[in-house]
């Protein structure tokens, strides 16, 4: 046997046990010294996953493949932490006769546990994770092992193969075999990727068009996707590492409970009330459990199918910017100004918080929509954004919707769970609010509260979570785009721009390669650091002072917006410091915008 003496993929627990035994032996046969901390097991997996490229072999858990993935194998799950269920105490180590055994990374002990045996209690954290809300289908094609649900028509064969693969890896630990395995898996994958791009796009197109005519379908779609949760048990992590609404990839051991139904008759009332907890509300048959070995925070990059490694400063970036701008212009009916603002909007993120201020956000309000053109441009825009940004959400705003929707996450004390609301979004999500369908009507208390929540999100980038006895503010980072007839007063955006489409010609989606490039462009430029040179700072300051001397109505909000735009403008060129040229462009854009606003009034 060459290579590793154990198979991390098919028998991760074996690897865990092996390291445990080794560690016990070296520490003088007393595992209490670990005190629940890692003894070197995760290092093995880190090596395997990241240094030896094992990560791509680990299947990504989803609703379709859950049925045929073997329990106690290594899987990964990508999702957002939706709720934290607190800590759980378990028998970490126990003595089986004279040898120590460990229960870490499993639910049920491997060897019969004598009830009187010497035991050690350790703890682990429970996280309730769901797929990222509003995750677009193209992000899934990046998984190289698992098919995305849109190309299900070839899946029967794939499934079979996968099963065989699994079986083979189960039985044979041969490294060579694995390599060949990998190759077999890879080749159809790459093929699939080539044909997969357009396929998923066209299906996407259909889906979006139906969405436009009947907005409710989009929600159904989202909720369906969200109903694939996973209970992740995390070991040895700092509390501050994992935060609510963070998007993580967890690699760990998949387990099912052997006894799906706990006999309630045996549990007397005392036990049942005391035990009544999160788990009883999410039966294991529905919610898979993952004992996490390694977790890492995901950035947008990780959702891209392939990341061309490029220097952001190269000419390529400028080229991409031009084509993307062209694409946006086409989508927006040849409104170049709107396309510019759109680009800046898509690049915005909250990069600092000073007191209550969220610096860096740039919400955009496109006005001048009516019922006729919103069905054309709204849908087109929605589709375009969906194709560019990994997590999107579309909210058709009506009085009815405001009065009935549950936007804020709410703690349900009956089930001890945080009930997700629409506004529980992952960092960097894009949210499009269509206000054109809003009619005059009466808001009830829920409606008022919901309107306030959206407004808060827009102004402060914070969402209030309702814990019944108190409310808790959670920070958010959501790009907000509002389509409305006139300036939206309910939702005061940073930028208000009257939209002027010149043509209603349909535009093409752009080919898969271009889309990939644009996604990469947005994802990587968004995270660029930024600074300003002292002399440029002087120029900007002088400009601001002059502007204020000329127009007293300009306030700190306007200046803040200008600077955000300046930053984003230079970022869009891949620059890390503001240049005069870009600053001039921002001023020009702002002038054009003001002109339009003036025209609107007259």
């Amino acid at each position, binding site marked *: 046997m060459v290579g590793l003496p154990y198979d991390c993929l098919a028998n991760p627990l074996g690897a865990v046990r092996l390291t445990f035994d080794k560690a016990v032996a070296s520490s003088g046969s007393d595992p209490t010294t670990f005190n629940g901390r890692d003894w070197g097991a995760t290092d093995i997996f880190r090596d395997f996953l990241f240094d030896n490229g094992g990560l791509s072999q680990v299947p990504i858990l989803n609703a379709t493949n859950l049925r045929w993935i073997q329990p106690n194998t290594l899987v990964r799950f990508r999702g957002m932490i939706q709720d934290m269920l607190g800590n759980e*105490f378990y*028998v970490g180590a126990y003595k089986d006769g004279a040898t120590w055994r460990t229960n870490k990374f499993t639910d049920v002990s491997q060897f019969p546990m004598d*009830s009187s045996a010497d*035991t050690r209690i350790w703890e682990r954290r429970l996280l309730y994770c769901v797929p990222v809300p509003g995750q677009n289908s193209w992000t899934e094609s990046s998984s190289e092992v698992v098919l995305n649900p849109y190309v299900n028509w070839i899946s029967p064969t794939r499934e079979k193969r996968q099963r065989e693969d699994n079986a083979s890896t189960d039985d044979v630990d041969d490294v060579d075999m694995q390599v060949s395995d990998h190759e077999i898996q890879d080749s159809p994958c790459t093929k699939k990727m080539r044909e997969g791009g357009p396929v998923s796009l066209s299906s996407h197109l259909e889906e979006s068009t139906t969405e436009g005519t009947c907005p409710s379908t989009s929600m159904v779609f989202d909720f369906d996707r969200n109903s694939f949760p996973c209970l992740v048990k995390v070991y040895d992590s700092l509390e501050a590492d994992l935060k609510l609404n963070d998007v993580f990839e967890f690699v760990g051991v998949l387990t099912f409970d052997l006894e799906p139904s706990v006999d309630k008759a045996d*549990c007397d009332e005392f036990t049942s009330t005391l035990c009544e907890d999160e788990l009883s509300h999410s039966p294991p048959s529905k919610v898979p459990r993952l004992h996490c070995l390694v977790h890492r925070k995901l950035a947008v990059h990780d959702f891209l199918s392939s990341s061309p490694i490029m220097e952001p400063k190269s000419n390529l970036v400028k080229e991409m910017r031009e084509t993307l701008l062209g694409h946006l212009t086409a989508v927006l009916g040849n409104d170049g100004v709107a396309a510019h603002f759109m680009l800046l909007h898509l690049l915005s993120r909250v990069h600092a918080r000073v007191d209550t201020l969220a610096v860096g956000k740039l919400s955009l309000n496109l006005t001048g929509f009516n019922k006729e053109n919103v069905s054309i441009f709204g849908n087109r825009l929605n589709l375009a954004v969906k194709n560019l940004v990994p997590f999107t959400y579309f909210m058709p705003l009506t009085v009815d919707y405001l009065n009935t929707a549950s936007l804020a996450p709410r703690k349900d004390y009956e089930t001890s769970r945080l009930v997700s609301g629409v506004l529980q979004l992952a960092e960097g999500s894009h949210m499009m609010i269509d206000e054109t369908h809003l009619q005059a009507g009466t808001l009830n208390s829920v409606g008022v509260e919901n309107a306030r929540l959206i407004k808060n999100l827009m102004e402060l980038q914070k969402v209030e979570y309702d*814990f019944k006895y108190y409310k808790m503010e959670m920070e958010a980072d959501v790009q907000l785009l509002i389509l409305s007839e006139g300036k939206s007063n309910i939702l005061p955006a940073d930028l208000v721009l009257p939209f002027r489409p010149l043509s209603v010609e349909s535009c093409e989606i752009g080919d898969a390669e271009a889309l990939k490039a644009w996604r990469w462009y947005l994802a990587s430029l968004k995270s660029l650091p930024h600074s300003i040179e002292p002399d440029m700072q002087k120029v900007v*300051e002088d400009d601001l002072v002059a502007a204020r001397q000329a127009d007293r109505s300009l306030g*700190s909000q306007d200046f803040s917006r200008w600077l955000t735009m300046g930053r984003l403008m230079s970022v869009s060129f891949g620059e890390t410091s503001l240049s005069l040229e870009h600053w001039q462009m921002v001023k020009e854009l702002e002038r054009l915008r003001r002109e339009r606003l003036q025209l609107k009034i007259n």
Partner: protein
Amino acid sequence: MASDSSPANLHGRPSSPDDSISSPIGNTFSSPGDATRRKRGRRSSAATPTPPPPHHSRFAADAVTPTPSTSRRRGRSASMSSPPPPPAAAAATPSSADEAPPSSEGDEADDAPPPMFVWGTNISVQDVNASILRFLRHFREHPSHTEGKYMRAIHHVIDVEGDSLDVDAHNVFDYDTDLYTKMVRYPLEVLAIFDIVLMDMVSRINPLFENHIQARIFNLKTSTSMRNLNPSDIEKMICLKGMIIRSSSIIPEIREAIFRCLVCGYYSDPIVVDRGRINEPTVCGKQECLAKNSMTLVHNRCRFADKQIVRLQETPDEIPEGGTPHTVSLLTHDKLVDAGKPGDRVEVTGIYRAMSVRVGPSQRTVKSLFKTYIDCLHLRKTDKSKMQKEDAMEIENGSSRNEEDNPVDYEDKVEKLRELSRLPDIYERLTRSLAPNIWELEDVKKGLLCQLFGGNALKLTSGASFRGDINILLVGDPGTSKSQLLQYIHKLSPRGIYTSGRGSSAVGLTAYVTKDPESGETVLESGALVLSDRGICCIDEFDKMSDSARSMLHEVMEQQTVSIAKAGIIASLNARTSVLACANPSGSRYNPRLSVIDNIHLPPTLLSRFDLIYLILDKADEQTDRRLAKHIVALHFENPETSQEDALDLPTLTAYVSYARNHIHPQLSDEAAEQLTRGYVEMRRRGNFPGSSKKVITATPRQIESLIRLSEALARIRFSELVEKKDVMEAFRLLEVALQQSATDHSTGTIDMDLITTGVSASERMRRENLLSATRNLIMEKMQIGGSSTRLLELLEELKKQSSGAEVHLSDLRNALSTLASEGFVTVHGDSVKRI
């Protein structure tokens, strides 16, 4: 290790930390069978020379029948749960204790009790017993007290026939640190001994006393946060705070069962719950009957105890960023049942316990999981204790709540705050810390600071009361960050309510009566002002508020109550709130040519209730613009933390304010009082210009009240119990700064309170009076009584000729004429004037 438990024994902790952690756990949790039923009452059988406890000991779910043999079993008590239960006789000595107690010969002898050790430790039962007795007998809060605190308490409990004795763990710590440590580390064992000692004492004092008194420990030296509970806390006494989110229904738990024979009607002796089970007798106990399987449970003769499961959640201030609150279950018994309702904030002292979860009834495999809960010993509502501090202006997330729990921490904190207060520039420093991202407006910030600290409320025996709260109005041009200031104060202030005038109605601000949808009863719902009692109510867009809503504020701002007479409810609610309002000038921009009243469009009666009225005007000043530009550029491109280095952070500032409000109650010094009188007289005198006939009132009694409040607040800022002369001077300065901006008569340039109170300045009034008399004279001259009418314009011409220089407007003349008409001097018909 000798029989007379030496002190060395007492101090000798188990050497390795693992032992102390693992031993109790290992033995208590390994049993799946009755884990759920396990109660701490089991250990109440710890051996002592005292008479055995009566049946109903604490948590007596499975209290062992008091037979002499129990004393032998003591050593095994912890391991009793491991199935199969060992025969009692074999348990004379702990089987696997790391320090086996010497097998003493005198097992049964009362006079020479064998040294008993708590299983798995080297804690001697006798020692603990003796030190508890010492503590109860001799602990005195004050050396002067003749009787021990707890002796008195025990007598009291006996008098009222109570069943529990609250023991302050601080007292235990002060008296016997060692006992405290033992109690916290081995609470099950030590508390069992505690109960026995208590019982012994009670029976000596009053042998007829039947209740079993339990010790309820509270107020531990250290309190844990729910988040930090970890396996090493299991079986330890812990203290934590939280909020009750759910209580189960009350569960009756059987303690003693009585059976009756269906054949002969014979009643069995009470059968005590043993290890969570009642052993139903299979044979009738009566010798004559001896019927088999004939016994049936007689429910109404059994003894039950109340039990409740309460779910506790972390309070918001303990939750780290990006986390969700943790929860923990509480098991409460007897008296503690229903001690708190959902929504209450409580402080709980109890024992952290864990029990194993089984996969299924028939499964041999134990799921390697534990459910944890807290066996509640003492539960205290923290809200209640706050309410007792009458003048406390508690801060939801501040330090005041930690006061009782963490005295050491608290002392440290207070010391730090006091240190801060001794800084010579604390006033300036605090001002800088207030809304650091809003620059300039130094004086406004100082005013707001005074509002935060507040003055002393005064209640005279006559019933008259003077408010201590300072009300501030900010009037200014749009975009001058008024709203941001408001938001900031709202965040900082305890119990702040933030509302916008546009969206507030009168009832929403004060209180309203609604019908409860379920019961149909009328209920009183508090509005924003009542809710911000002892806080600051921030009202944005004050000018946009409807008149009816604003008129409600009159009462609140001076009397500090809200009166309701509606739907059969007549009530007067406290609303001791400071009002911080901000308004835009009526014509969106401040017009310096108009008076404040005209600019703000607020009724003067309401305006006069504001102690300070600040005008925040946007002056076209390049200097400030540059600062703004610099600030915003820095905000976007630099590390925002670098801007302020010696400013206080928000939590410190909050703690500082709350401490000052709770603990500092400054009094006017003689010197300060004198300065106050002098200054006030000076202020009033300033209105009387020598040689001027104009009477300008520059200050009113309301202002002197404001001045007192301001100077008290200024003293508070320094943590000074005495208002000094410099405080008064600064108060004058603040008032004048505010007045100069708002109460300047723009035609004369002097401060004129009439501007605030009536909206008309003295000079304006004088001009009107002059015109009136001029008109009167003119009419007297030109017209006869009942004569022909004169046209208005002619009169105007005449007047203009007479009063050379001064401009006379037609509207002024009309005003004057209408005054004359009301006097019955003339009649005015359209444009013609007729003298009558």
